[in-house]
């Protein structure tokens, strides 16, 4: 964020409450960025500084509250490390320095609020370079223990010498963001972690892969094994775990009872499994738990779901499950920060049991989620529709034969039956999707008989919530020009997502009984009404 953008945002905090940002340095350039980030964090606040040169008195004799943040430099612990005083000839011993660091650390421990330590390089005050290195690391350890650490790049010696400001102007934004984060977390640490299941709790999709989902400590299960272990440790510190999934309850429970699971069903206070928007499920959970949404953290792998929750419930912190295993350490670090607590009480330890009892039998809600159309527009989705002949139909057949959830009728096809269909004049269409997040590959297959009956329609669950299915049908209808479409629909034990879509096509309400099987006829006008809006979200190419 640049200065002018920060200035505009900061206006929303013009009359917000203040908090003390205590430091020995001049931080006035930071004010506008701190106000802007507090607005973004849904907790508008303005910082006020101490009178110049009064940090030490403030720490010893001042009044502190939990919203206070202290920005500390090495020379707040040891004044002789201040670059502006030069490198003193009269050096204290290494041991003396260590004991003074410990003394300030204890003092800070007893002050409410939190501290942020700026990892400035220190002047080489000892002849033994090993002592200088140890000193810097000892200070860093104190900083980390007391709150959070700003990396050394944020310090500008040039700026400090010239103006007395310690922070590099170009990194004021990043520094402010971290200060606001520390203040918010310290004032209200996270209490509830709501986690998605498919491709988060385990690798794979329970509705598609069944018992083949992976969460054991080997191969592709590793990140999920580590995640589950981490959640177990959070739970042991009093964090409440809940699962939310676009699945049937039975499917979700099947996954949670998988023998390779580290976490067990009882580790969760609630398993919210339905096809309702996740935001409405989380809101309902917050109501039942009687906890504020600002203490909720939501983890999902799908950016569309994360955005839906973030739009509808801005108080909830959303965190994306990492795509690459190498990003797992940063991911767990971030979650650890959000749930950081110094003391764990007896009540913390038994919290899950208490809440699970009171939540027994909460039903998934029927409610509207956020309108994510604007977000979908930003994704720049490109749908490429192809019509492969029998020789290029391998991927389509694979998709048809392994997809359970978004599957029109569960009918499987092999190359011979497909050839038979071709002989009677049927046409096979496939679609690939690309968007801002990358290429999703071939994600849809559709077989249309000569008379316009859709015999097969399957779509990968990877691209749910993006309205691909609606856009595809709308485009196909324009392409083929039939006055009406017939869908050979059959309810199966796993194709609830298809039923949801059929309801949309028929203009039925959520929860309506819906058709069970047979031909569903949809007039061109109905299809147009239900799907044309979705088509606008895509750039469609036919190859």
């Amino acid at each position, binding site marked *: 964020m*640049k*200065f*002018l953008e920060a*200035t505009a945002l900061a206006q929303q905090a013009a009359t917000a409450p203040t908090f003390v940002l205590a430091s020995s340095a*001049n931080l*006035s*350039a930071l004010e*506008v960025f701190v106000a802007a980030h507090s607005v973004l964090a849904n907790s508008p606040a303005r910082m006020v500084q101490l009178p110049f040169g009064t940090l030490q008195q403030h720490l010893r004799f001042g009044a502190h509250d939990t919203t206070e943040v202290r920005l500390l430099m090495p020379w707040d612990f040891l004044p002789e490390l201040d670059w502006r005083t030069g490198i003193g000839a009269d050096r204290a011993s290494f041991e003396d320095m260590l004991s003074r660091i410990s003394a300030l650390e204890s003092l800070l421990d007893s002050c409410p609020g939190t501290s942020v330590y700026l990892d400035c390089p220190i002047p080489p005050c000892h002849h033994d370079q090993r002592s200088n290195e140890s000193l810097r690391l000892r200070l860093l350890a104190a900083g980390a223990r007391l709150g959070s650490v700003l990396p050394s790049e944020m310090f500008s010696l*040039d*700026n400090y010498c*010239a*103006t*007395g*400001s310690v922070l590099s*102007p*170009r990194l*004021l*934004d990043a520094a402010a963001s971290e200060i606001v984060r520390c203040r918010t977390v310290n004032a209200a640490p996270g209490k509830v972690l709501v986690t998605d299941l498919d491709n988060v709790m385990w690798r794979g999709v329970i509705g598609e892969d069944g018992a083949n989902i992976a969460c054991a400590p080997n191969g592709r299960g590793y990140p999920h094994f580590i995640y589950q272990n981490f959640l177990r440790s959070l739970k042991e510190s009093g964090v409440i775990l809940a699962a939310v999934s676009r699945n049937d309850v039975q499917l979700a429970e099947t996954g949670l009872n998988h023998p390779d699971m580290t976490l067990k069903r009882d580790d969760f206070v609630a398993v919210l499994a339905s096809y309702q928007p996740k935001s409405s499920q989380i809101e309902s959970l917050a109501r039942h738990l009687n906890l504020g949404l600002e203490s909720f953290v939501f983890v999902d792998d799908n950016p569309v779901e994360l955005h839906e929750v973030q739009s509808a419930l801005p108080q909830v912190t959303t965190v994306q499950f990492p795509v690459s295993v190498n990003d797992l350490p940063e991911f767990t670090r971030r979650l650890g920060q959000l749930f950081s607590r110094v003391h764990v009480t007896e009540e913390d330890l038994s919290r899950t049991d208490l809440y699970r009892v009171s939540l027994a039998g909460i039903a998934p809600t029927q409610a509207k989620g956020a309108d994510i159309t604007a977000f979908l527009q930003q994704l720049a989705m490109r749908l490429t529709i192809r019509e492969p002949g029998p020789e290029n139909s391998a991927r389509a057949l694979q998709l048809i034969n392994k997809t359970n959830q978004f599957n029109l009728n569960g009918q499987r096809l092999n190359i011979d039956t497909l050839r038979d269909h071709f002989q009677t004049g049927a046409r096979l269409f496939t679609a690939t999707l690309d968007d801002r997040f990358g290429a999703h590959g071939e994600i849809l297959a559709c077989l249309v008989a000569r008379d316009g009956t859709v015999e097969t329609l399957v779509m990968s669950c990877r691209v749910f919530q993006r309205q691909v299915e609606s856009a595809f049908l709308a485009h196909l209808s324009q392409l083929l020009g039939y006055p009406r479409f017939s869908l050979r629909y059959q309810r199966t034990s796993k194709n609830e997502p298809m039923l949801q879509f059929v309801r949309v096509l028929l203009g039925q309400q959520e929860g309506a009984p819906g058709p069970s099987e047979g031909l569903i006829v949809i007039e061109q006008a109905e299809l147009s009404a239900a799907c044309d809006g979705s088509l606008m979200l895509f750039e469609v190419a036919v190859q």
Partner: protein
Amino acid sequence: MQEMEDKLTSLFHALFPDTRAMRAETISVDSVPQWDSAAHVNLIAAIESEFDLFFDDVEALLELTDFQSVCRYVQHALARQ
């Protein structure tokens, strides 16, 4: 050029509200009471942040005492990038 000047004007307005009622050529250390040495530090920080610049010539920065000279300095700094 115009865009840079517009941004700089907004930046002055944000830091020194009195300048909103002033013509650009009249804005200087002498005509804006809030523009003291502490505010000068914030002005430089705001410029570096807004234009993604890094100034290392402290002497030259101290000579920026009116809107026009700030404008010229930023223009040169951007041209050097």
